[in-house]
């Protein structure tokens, strides 16, 4: 089992080491994910219903559906 896991890990490590164009692409992916998760998600996308219990969420949405 350990030998198999080691082979899997080496497979990925070797793959990443051998990349050429892939390094640029990974840099783009990481920058993109950072902007999406660390900047946009935290500062601009607060979840309005998060932190509320199920009945509170239902009451909140019912208010929206009947109060417009």
């Amino acid at each position, binding site marked *: 089992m350990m030998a198999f896991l080691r082979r899997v890990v080496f*497979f990925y490590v070797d793959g990443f080491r051998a*990349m050429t164009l892939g390094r640029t692409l990974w840099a783009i992916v990481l920058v993109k994910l950072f902007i999406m998760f660390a900047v946009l998600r935290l500062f*601009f996308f607060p*979840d309005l219903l998060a932190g509320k219990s199920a009945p509170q969420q239902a009451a909140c*949405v*019912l208010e929206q559906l009947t109060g417009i």
Partner: protein
Amino acid sequence: MVSDYLQTVDWSRAQFALTAVYHWLFVPLTLGLSVLVAIMESCWVRTGDEFWRRTARFWMRLFGVNFAIGVATGLILEFEFGTNWSNYSYFVGDIFGAPLAIEGIMAFFLETTFIAVMFFGWDKVSRRVHLTATWLTAVGASLSAWWILVANAWMQYPVGCTFNLGSVRNEMTSFWEVAFSPVAVNKFFHTVASSFMLAALFVVGVSAWYLLRRREERMARQSIGVASVFGFVFALVTAFTGDRSGALVARVQPMKLAALEALYNGQAGAPLTVVGVLRPAGSRTADDPFYFGLGVPKLLSVMSFRDAQAYVPGIGDLLAGNPKQGILSAAEKMARGRVAVAELARYRAASEAGDRRTMAAVGRKFDPATSEGEEFLSEYFAYLGYGYLDTPAQLVPNVPLLFYSFRVMVGAGVLFIVVLGVVWWLNRRNRLASKRWLLRTCVWMIPLAYLASQAGWVVTEAGRQPWAIQNLMPVGVAASKIPGASVSVTFFLFLALFTALFVAEVSILLRQIKIGPDAAGNSKPQKL
């Protein structure tokens, strides 16, 4: 306050449209190119010819660039459901969440396993294991798309669910009805087939560029050989499923059909307008909407209902009603919708006051197991969304946008069938390289394919306005009440981010195409 909320709705729509358009720049090429790469790799495994390995690796490299830039852009759409469209997200409950969750899990396993084997495993696993990983990546990408399209189809044709008054959510009553509704099934095949066609046009276009430069001629000719047949077949499938889409839209979204045909007066034996120029909104009348229009008699009736004499309702019928055709007026639907909204308000007031008797009385109306509930749900709740509209005119989507987008999509689709068929035939006879005008046309087919693909989504999404969920929830109710300013700021942040990423993708792709299958003259293919 009201105008700020309207601004929020408009900005949220603009932001979602921007994100979706950007996301869709990457998806179709990923779906189609993965299959083409798998076919080329299969040729290598079957023949043992190193040429096919080199060819497959080249297209796989372009697939990798497209995949890396596009990956996770769909996550932004999922954020927006929770933040900009929180009322919608809560109201649809697990019907929408379940397909998206399945897609997320499927995409995660796909991306961390098969794609890794595909890119890293060339010299580390056997040919057959590698080929299996490549095919599983291709199949997995299409299966992943299935679940997203199931979710989208449900918004256009909400089936397999019931509304739970206590939780204010729709609950799935039949997974199969949701996953295999005729709209979902047809949408999947139409979208995936058109994506395969787009990828084929990409391969044909890039290969044509090589032939114009007299470079990589064998790879270009063989790639065109594979892609033109593949593209031609799936262009026909796209046309077939597109025709089926029209018939389904006629039944479940008649206003969308009337708007995309600019059909103001319904008629039996309705013609299909092939090309036309609409008059501006101010001077467009129901009897004479076109400056100029060229139509095929009775074709719209045939395509919509498979009957040359069938009555196709126009925008006027759907607004004013047409008792002879059994069409309710918008005013009647709005009145019924308001009854449903009033019952929800009564339940809310009773709930806040702790009035259990009234809550139970309203609850019976929402219980499909009782005859009272069955009648209320089908006669009133089915029109809930209409209860939020101020005027019947709000039911009409943007007619010129739909009319022209539809014609761009269909016109380009017909052109693709012709071009792919001609290219395949000439390539088979080894006469393509001398037709330089046709090679240049093939290169220009690449942006046209993207334009047609985006136009298809404009028809689908702009055509269902004002609905977030057909007949049940208009976008004005679906949107979260968040400050319009914050949505507009993020709109421009997204625009900047997406533009930068798009420029990065195009420049990396162009560079890799210029380099070709052999990096810097090496005979060994460049690694990703």
